[in-house]
Structure formats: C-alpha cells, structure tokens
C-alpha cells in the first residue's frame, strides 16, 4: 500500500495506529448503548486501566443552525486512563471544543455516553472532580486575583491551598491586583489557577495557550506539568503539533468530528510531521529508493518520484549521494492542515485504512436516528 497510498503516511505507523484504534472501537454499533458498559469493562485489559478514567463512547452532537443541523461530533470513542495527559489535536472545526463541552456536561450528546471516573459529567463536576479552562471567558471584575482564586477554592470540597495555586500558576506578583487590570497573558494564568485550585482529578484545557507568547506558553506548560505530576489526568485541545508532542503522553487526532488517529505522540508526530521529497529521477527502481535511510514510502508519477520520509535530512543526503542525476529536488513539510486532510481522506481515493479503521461513526449515527 506504500506505493499506491498517500505518500505522507508512513505505513508502519499507520498499521500500529489502526490496530490501536480497532480496539477502541470494537463495541461497534452498540457503542451508543449504555447497557453495554459492563461487558466493555470486562473486555478491557485490567492492567491497562485499573480504575475508571474518562470514557467517551459513540458520542454524537449536532448543532441546530439556520442551514440545518451540523454534526460537530460524529461518533467519538475515547478512553483515557487516570493520570494520562492527552492532547486533542486537530484543526479549527474538528470538533475538539464540542467534545470538551460534552465531556464537561456543558452540552448533552445526541447519542453516546460520557463517563468521568465512573460518573456522569454533571455528577463528576458536582463532586469537584473536574476543573477546566475553557477556550473563551473573561474574569469577573471587582475582585483581586487572590480573592477570585479564594472564591473558586471555596466552591470545591477539597481544594489545594490558595497560596499553592497562586504559586503553581506563577501569580505571586499580581495576586493583589484587580482582575480587570491584567494583561492577556496574566488573565490566562489566573484562569489556569482557577482551573487548578479545586485540585480536580481531571483537568480540561481548551486551547489554553492561544493568546500567549512563547515565554507565556513555556511557563504555562511548566505549571501544567507540575500539576500532572500530582497524578492528575489532563486533557487539552490544541492545534499546535509541537504542544501535543512536548506535553502529552498521547495524542488524539480529530478532524470533521471524528477521531482519525490515536496513539503515542511520537507516532502521531511521525505521521503528521512527515516530509515528502520530490525529484525528477527517470527509470529508477522504487524498491531501491524505499530502502534509503529515513524513507518510509516511495511512489512514482512519470519521471517524478515522491518519497515519504520520517527523516528527510538523511533521505535527501542518501538520495543525492546515490543518484547525483536527480533534478528538481523539493522537500515539503506536510503541515498539520494538509496532513489532516489526507488523514480524513478528503480526496476520493481516500478510502485508506485510517478512515476505514476510524471510530464507528456511521453506526453511531445510525443508532441515533
């Protein structure tokens, strides 16, 4: 399939990922049926998930719009173990925020179930098990930073000390300042403190670093790392591959309301971070090219070849060393958006293994009707 498939997809990684996804979607059409939960718990490997974490099963959410219903989430299955840090990675409109709203109980699914530590989202929130930093939201005015954090702490049954949250979020300098006199980056840090101070078992962050500069980002993720070190579960949405790569154990790729890949961030990075070398090189055997270091797939179109690479630097050196006659050499990064389009099979020949192995969305939709 490497020759005929899309060059950007390393087949090895693909196989691993689809294999993994098949296990998460084995429930099939029954995924929307709550009564099926015990049997699923039984077929789950006990060593993998000793206690219930976060489980999204057959989730479907449609928003009503003037132009008719729009399916924001079209059958998402996802299991997150306690203590995991998971990135929801995808372009705008992929359904990340809607998935997060469903996870938090801010929206009700049209089909499917959400379970947070074995509870319904609303019960988990009421128990103080959930903290979140939503994508948008201002702070209420007329309180100091410390007062706002104190207020939020008072709402939770077992919060961390206010000073601890302030320190964790790096707010010592501005703790006495009114919330309406903060810069954008400072506001984000206060919002992070508000999400943390309840010491929730699950922390959900919806594109938390959008308004931050590079230093702010680094400081923010240092805070989150410290929080994760307490054994907490973190789910964050991002469209930055580097954030997912640097801070998550696992990345879940979403596009058009579906999970298109799910795996360790290293594998995801290899998939969507792949580069393609194109060159004019008539008559050469593809097998030889495919054997080059850093090359995972090769294809030919007339005189042109396209090599999908996990390491384009090594590949281009070997290519030019072995075939000095190669001309018009181009190296292109797939780019996240483009990689997503390929993963979702936008083009007609897109009935690739990834989409075939994607979650049981059609079945879930069927059941929802």
């Amino acid at each position, binding site marked *: 399939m490497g020759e005929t498939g899309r060059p950007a997809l390393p087949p090895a990684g693909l196989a691993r990922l689809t294999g993994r996804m098949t296990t998460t979607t084995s429930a099939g059409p029954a995924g929307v049926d709550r009564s099926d939960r015990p049997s699923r718990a039984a077929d789950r490997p006990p060593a993998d998930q000793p206690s219930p974490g976060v489980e999204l099963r057959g989730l479907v959410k449609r928003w009503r719009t003037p132009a008719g219903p729009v399916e924001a989430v079209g059958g998402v299955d996802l299991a997150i173990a306690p203590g995991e840090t998971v990135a929801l990675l995808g372009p705008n409109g992929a359904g990340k925020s809607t998935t997060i709203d469903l996870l938090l109980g801010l929206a009700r699914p049209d089909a499917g179930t959400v379970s947070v530590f074995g509870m319904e989202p609303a019960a988990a929130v*009421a128990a103080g098990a959930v903290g979140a930093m939503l994508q948008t939201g201002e*702070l209420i005015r*007329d309180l100091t930073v410390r007062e706002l954090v104190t*207020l939020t702490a008072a709402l939770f*049954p077992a919060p961390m000390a206010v000073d601890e949250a302030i320190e964790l979020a790096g707010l010592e300098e501005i703790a006495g300042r009114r919330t309406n006199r903060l810069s954008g980056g400072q506001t984000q840090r206060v919002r992070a403190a508000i999400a943390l101070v309840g010491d929730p078992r699950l922390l959900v962050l919806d594109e938390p670093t959008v308004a931050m500069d590079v230093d702010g980002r680094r400081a923010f993720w240092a805070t989150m790392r410290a929080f994760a070190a307490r054994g907490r579960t973190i789910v964050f949405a991002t469209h930055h591959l580097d954030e997912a790569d640097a801070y998550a154990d696992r990345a879940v790729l979403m596009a058009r309301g579906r999970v298109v890949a799910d795996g360790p961030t290293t594998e995801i990075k290899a998939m969507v971070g792949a580069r393609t070398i194109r060159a004019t090189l008539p008559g050469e055997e593809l097998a030889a090219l495919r054997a080059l270091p850093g090359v995972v797939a090769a294809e030919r179109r007339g005189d042109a070849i396209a090599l999908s690479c996990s390491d384009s630097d090594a590949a281009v050196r070997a290519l030019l060393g072995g075939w000095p006659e190669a001309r018009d050499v181009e190296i292109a990064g797939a780019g996240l958006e483009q990689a997503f389009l390929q993963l979702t099979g936008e083009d007609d020949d897109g009935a690739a293994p990834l989409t075939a192995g994607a979650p049981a969305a059609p079945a879930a939709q069927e059941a929802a009707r």
Partner: protein
Amino acid sequence: MTATYLRFELLRTVRNGRFFVFSLGFPLILYFAIAGPNAGESDFEGLGVSVPLYYMIGLASFGAMMSALSCGARIAAERSAGWNRQLRITPLRPSVYLGAKVATAYALALMSIVLLYASGFVLGVRLPAGDWLAMTLLILVGLVPFAALGIVIGHLMTVDAIGPVMGGVTSLLALLGGTWFPITSGFMFELARCLPSYWLVQASRVGVGGEGWGARGWLAIGAWSVALTALAAWAYRRDTARV
C-alpha cells in the same frame, strides 16, 4: 461554600463603584430635587401628608425596586463574560448562585431604603417607630417579585439590551405604581392595582396612615412572587441547557 461565595458577591457589588453609587444615588438625587424645594408643603395634593413624606416613601420603594432588579440583571454581564460557564464546571449549586444574587439584591435595596429614610428625616419627616418598621418589612416582602424579575431579565437579555429594558421596565412600573403622583381612580388605577409596584409603593403608605395591603395586596404580591419565581427558574434552566 455559601458564606464565602456570598461574601465575595457582596464585596463585588460594593466595589463596583459606578453601579453602587448610581443605584443608591439616583433615588437620593431625585428625592432632593423634587422634595427639597417643596419641603415646607405639608398637605400634598390634599392627601394630608407633607411633600417630603410622600416622596420619601415613593422613592424608597422606587430605589428598592431598582436595586432588586439591577442585581439580578448583573447576571447578564456575567453571562456575556462567560463566567457562568466557568461556574458551571465547579460544584457551585444553582440554589447558592441564585440565592447569593437575591441576597445581594436585598442588601442593596435595604441600603437604598435606609438612605431615603435618613434623607426624609433631614427634610423633617417624623414617624412613630412602629410605622418605620411595618413599612420596611412590607417593602421587603414586596421586593420578592422584583428580585425574581431581575433574574429573569438577567438570564433572558443580552448585556446590550439590558440598559434600555431596565430603564423602560422600572420607569413604567414606577409610574403605574404611583411613585411620581398618586393614582386613585379610573383605568390606570385598576391596572395599577394588578401590578406589584403599586403594592410596593402602597406598602410604604403605612407611613402616611395607609392601611397596608389588605387581602387584595397580599394576593397580588403573592401571585406575582410565585409567577416570577417560576419564570426565573425556567429562565435559568433554559439558559444553562442551551449554551
């Protein structure tokens, strides 16, 4: 949870300078502007009460009504800031959230009433202690529908619409309630007697020898309280279900 949340809610209200000063100051300014120049007139419109007394009780009701309504209406600002969504992912119970709004509304209303009383006293109003007390208690009961209406408006209106809506609602209710001039007969009178604001002003008429509410007054206030509280609960649920 409740005590801390309420404490910060009150603190925010007091710290919101413009809101605080306008809510309390506006009725005071009106009072001195209307009653001040006519402070010596002891028989207003042949009612047998002085101008300062008539407008003190009218504006005490008006100020209390404004305070009660506007506190609920501040919900609209918190909604537009996204703060309600943030609160909904905390264990804060809706009853505590709404309860704090009502408590704040009452605290502000009480401050407004006390300030009007003090101003009336300055302009020479003297009443028996029992009348002050009875009048105040009736006003506080009569505020229930307005606290609920504030929550309704806060959850149904956008922050842009809230100014005009509040201005219109309070002016109309105050006018028909008899805040500005007595309404004693005709269609206006029949209409007024169906409105909670009429009975709110009527509550304070205890101070001018009025008879309080009577059965009809209690019925009107009771009915409006039940209806608007139900509407407030509906508005809250509708708002939070939609998102």
